């Protein structure tokens, strides 16, 4: 765990030298600011961030941004050859993967922290429900953790970060948008299956304040699964 923190620090530091990270941060601020000012910060509007976070806009936006952040995590190590010095240091693959996950996660938290200012604005004009706000941020953090773990997983496959990023976006689109669309067109138990698969279903439920045990479990298990799979991919690369 201490080794993971060391790697996390390095990754977070590397983001501040990455032009992609700055572009992502700027676009995220711009777009979410625009959404906030036009859908939430209106006279007589609801005093919560629900209108900013609910619906498709936020999960899709984050899907692209977090794929862009996650794609470099391991593929850059492969491309530069630094994976060789990293994996011949006394650290395990699991420590490396978890450290990288935390590094991207820390950058994401910085991104999210900038949106706290929206909450501040609302509380100047209305009464913000602190529990709902907490629930919103919990949903955002869990969604982001899943997205990052998927991006990390694909970046373990290739030394080309663009390929890793595109695979991650396509995969996440399938599991959020397409699963939802398929679910909408179906009836009965099949509908339930696809709805359960869809990332957005679970996210939206949490945004609406229904912090169900099943949603939390969904995010925790899928994230853990992708982290575990990443460790296995990294281990298997040694055999080739």
């Amino acid at each position, binding site marked *: 765990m*201490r*080794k993971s923190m*060391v*790697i996390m*620090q*390095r990754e977070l*530091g*590397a983001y501040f*030298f*990455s032009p992609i990270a700055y572009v992502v941060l700027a676009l995220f601020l711009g777009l979410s600011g625009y959404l906030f000012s036009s859908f939430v910060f209106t006279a007589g509007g609801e005093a919560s961030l629900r209108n900013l976070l609910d619906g498709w806009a936020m999960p899709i936006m984050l899907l692209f941004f977090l794929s862009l952040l996650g794609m470099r995590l391991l593929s850059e190590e492969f491309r*530069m*050859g*630094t994976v*060789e*010095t*990293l*994996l*011949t*240091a*006394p*650290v*395990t693959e699991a420590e490396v993967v978890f450290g990288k996950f935390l590094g991207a996660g820390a950058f994401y938290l910085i991104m999210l922290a900038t949106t706290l200012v929206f909450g501040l604005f609302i509380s100047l004009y209305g009464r913000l429900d602190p529990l709902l706000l907490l629930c919103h941020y919990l949903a955002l953090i869990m969604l982001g953790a899943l997205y990052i773990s998927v991006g990390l997983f694909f970046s373990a496959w290739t030394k080309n970060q663009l390929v890793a990023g595109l695979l991650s976006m396509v995969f996440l689109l399938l599991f959020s948008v397409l699963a939802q669309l398929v679910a909408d067109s179906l009836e009965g138990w099949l509908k339930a299956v696809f709805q359960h698969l869809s990332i957005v279903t679970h996210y939206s439920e949490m945004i609406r304040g229904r912090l169900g045990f099943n949603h939390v479990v969904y995010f925790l298990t899928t994230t853990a699964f992708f982290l575990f799979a990443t460790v296995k991919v990294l281990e298997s690369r*040694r*055999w*080739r």
Partner: protein
Amino acid sequence: MISVKNLTKRYGALLAVDDISFDVGEGQIVGFLGPNGAGKSTTIRILTCYHPATSGQASIAGYDVFTQSVDVRRQIGYLPESAPLYPEMRVREYLQFRGKLHGMDRAQRDKAIQRVTDRCWLGEFVDRPIGQLSKGMRQRVGLADAMLHNPKVLILDEPTIGLDPTQIQEQRKLIRELGQSHTILFSSHTLGEVEKVCSHVLVIASGRILARGAPEKLRDSVSAGSRLIAEMRGPAEDIRRGVSSLGGVRKVGVESQDGWTRLSIEANEGSDVREPLFQLSSSKGWPLRELRREVASLEDFFVKITAEQRAAAGKG
């Protein structure tokens, strides 16, 4: 300190390392010599726990590279070929990061960084971003990193590749100095380099160890196959016959140009025909304008030992 037994590595159908065994004693500097694609880097990657072997065993300081990989990695300092580094980090920052990965505390790290940057002449560069450093400087940063945790064993893959001649000399000097306190295995494809630095040489080609021993011994076996080049003026046919009749001469090649005859003479092992040749030229009155020994290059050496190996395999 390093012990390798019947190590084999296959990449699919390609046999990269073919049943090699060797030992490196404590305090030795061993050169791993071979042409590109010989299996040097593969063997090194197995020893550093980066790749597992297909079969066979290897251990460092008593720890098995496969089952006690983390223990092995604590004992070794490794400089991979081309010294990969993170370009956005500063030298000190990078060494701090590597020190933390080795579990060193702040005081240990500061001390170790001071020590390795002094050793590798990085003093004035510690606060520069790695991306701005020259290839030679980066090799030094890689070496400093390998030495940081003061490992018992240093494994250096082509530590002088891509350096300019002055840097190569400095790097060799440094490796020799480090040999006083570390066991070193380093790979190279130049015989001259290995000769200057090592106490022991392993020659590897197409995945097999073809020769091993002290560098002087290898040098002798190379020069045994050397040729004499001579140029004399006189009747070509007479010269050829005269030289062929000298004791110890095995084969003579003749080439005539502008009245001069150029001879390339292969002598039997252990016989030096330079003096008889001079006597021949002076007694016959054939002027001699060149006489030199052509020492076989490393390529010739490889050609020779691989040919011998193939011949032996053919007989067996």
